[in-house]
């Protein structure tokens, strides 16, 4: 018999996105509103149900009157704002960012278990990236197949930290984190030991499901067989952190 919850006063604001008049609660971010209204804004680190990270920079948009671009995932809507999400300049930046990601590690789509179901691959096609102008960085990382159910292939990791956040914020285990700095960053389990030896991993597999690429996958999958299922995330997020 719950009484009326004392709602903090949240205003509703109106604004314009790509010539479309919209309204939303002022505590919502641009990307939330755009996704709700099916205005496509690319992102590889944002995922509904996880905290915003602001790392991939693909969701940058133009706000009229602001000299700098804004990341839609970490910008709240403001009364009267006018947003452009798909200008020629933004398209060019996004293409370059996707190219940079492809060139950073050995993303070889043809032999990836996520081929055909990979967010990076799909985004490349959508952005019109048909080649990389810069050479691929000459590094490679070992594949950790020690876990009986899952596998991590760092060559396919884009450091979006979705796995880190889902493990910390939803599962509560905080098995994953990031080690190192710059391009040498790597996602790690516990003390960067083989996944199977992790003392904190509950083998829940959420990290695998939220991974946008073929970096975290199920064992026993072959090329193109790894299909991710993320429908659980908004549901669990609401249960864990009721608004």
């Amino acid at each position, binding site marked *: 018999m719950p009484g009326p919850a004392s709602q903090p006063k949240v205003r509703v604001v109106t604004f314009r996105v790509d010539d479309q008049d919209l309204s939303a609660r002022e505590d919502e971010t641009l990307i939330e509103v755009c996704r709700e209204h099916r205005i496509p804004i690319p992102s590889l680190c944002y995922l509904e149900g996880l905290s915003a990270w602001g790392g991939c920079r693909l969701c940058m948009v133009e706000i009229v009157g602001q000299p700098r671009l804004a990341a839609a995932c970490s910008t709240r809507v403001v009364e009267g704002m006018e947003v452009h999400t798909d200008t020629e300049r933004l398209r060019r930046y996004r293409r370059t960012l996707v190219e940079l990601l492809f060139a950073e590690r050995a993303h070889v789509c043809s032999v990836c278990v996520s081929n055909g179901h990979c967010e990076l691959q799909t985004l490349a096609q959508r952005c019109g990236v048909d080649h990389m102008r810069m050479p691929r960085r000459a590094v490679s990382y070992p594949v950790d197949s020690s876990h009986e159910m899952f596998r991590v292939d760092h060559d396919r990791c884009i450091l979006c930290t979705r796995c880190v956040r889902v493990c910390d914020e939803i599962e509560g285990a905080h*098995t994953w984190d990031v*080690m190192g700095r710059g391009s040498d960053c790597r996602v790690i389990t*516990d*003390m960067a030991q083989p996944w199977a030896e992790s003392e904190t991993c509950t083998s829940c597999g959420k990290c695998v499901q939220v991974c946008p690429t073929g970096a975290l996958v199920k064992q026993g999958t072959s090329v193109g067989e790894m299909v991710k299922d993320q429908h659980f995330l908004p549901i669990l997020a609401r249960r864990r952190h009721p608004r």
Partner: protein
Amino acid sequence: MSLHRPKPPLPSDDTRWKLVNATMRRNGYADHALIETLHSVQDAFGFLDETALRFVAASLDVPLSKVFGVATFYHLFRLKPKGRHTCVVCTGTACYIKGAGVLVDALRAHHQVEPGETTADGALSVLTARCVGACGLAPAAVVDGEVVGKLAPEALLERLDQLEHAKTAPAPPPRARAPA
């Protein structure tokens, strides 16, 4: 909800653990004392090994991966023991313009060691630093904690040779082992 959080026992009876513990106690075993505590481990033991990282993680109740993430993010933290002597070549702008690169090359050629590494015999660790603030003495290096400036490569090599021959600097104490 407050769950009981037991403090882990000290990894060994090495008294240096007490210094580490004191840092954590002074900060109320709060998770934000992590970097301070890692500094104190490194001051006491010279580097951060797995035993220490696990002890700190358990004491401050910080996830292992987070501790490892922090320890590897900051360039000052070392996960391997240092050599008997260290030579930090300053590669700040002023030193760079005045030939820090030549110093690094000389060390590479003469001691077969890359910056960030220790010679095979454990005698010398070579590091680079982004400006030690002695721009007036460029190019400068810090040899066993002492800043030496206006260096020609020959002078630096000679100075390092003297260190090894003199053997005056005490070797760092051996790393404490946890009781089996």
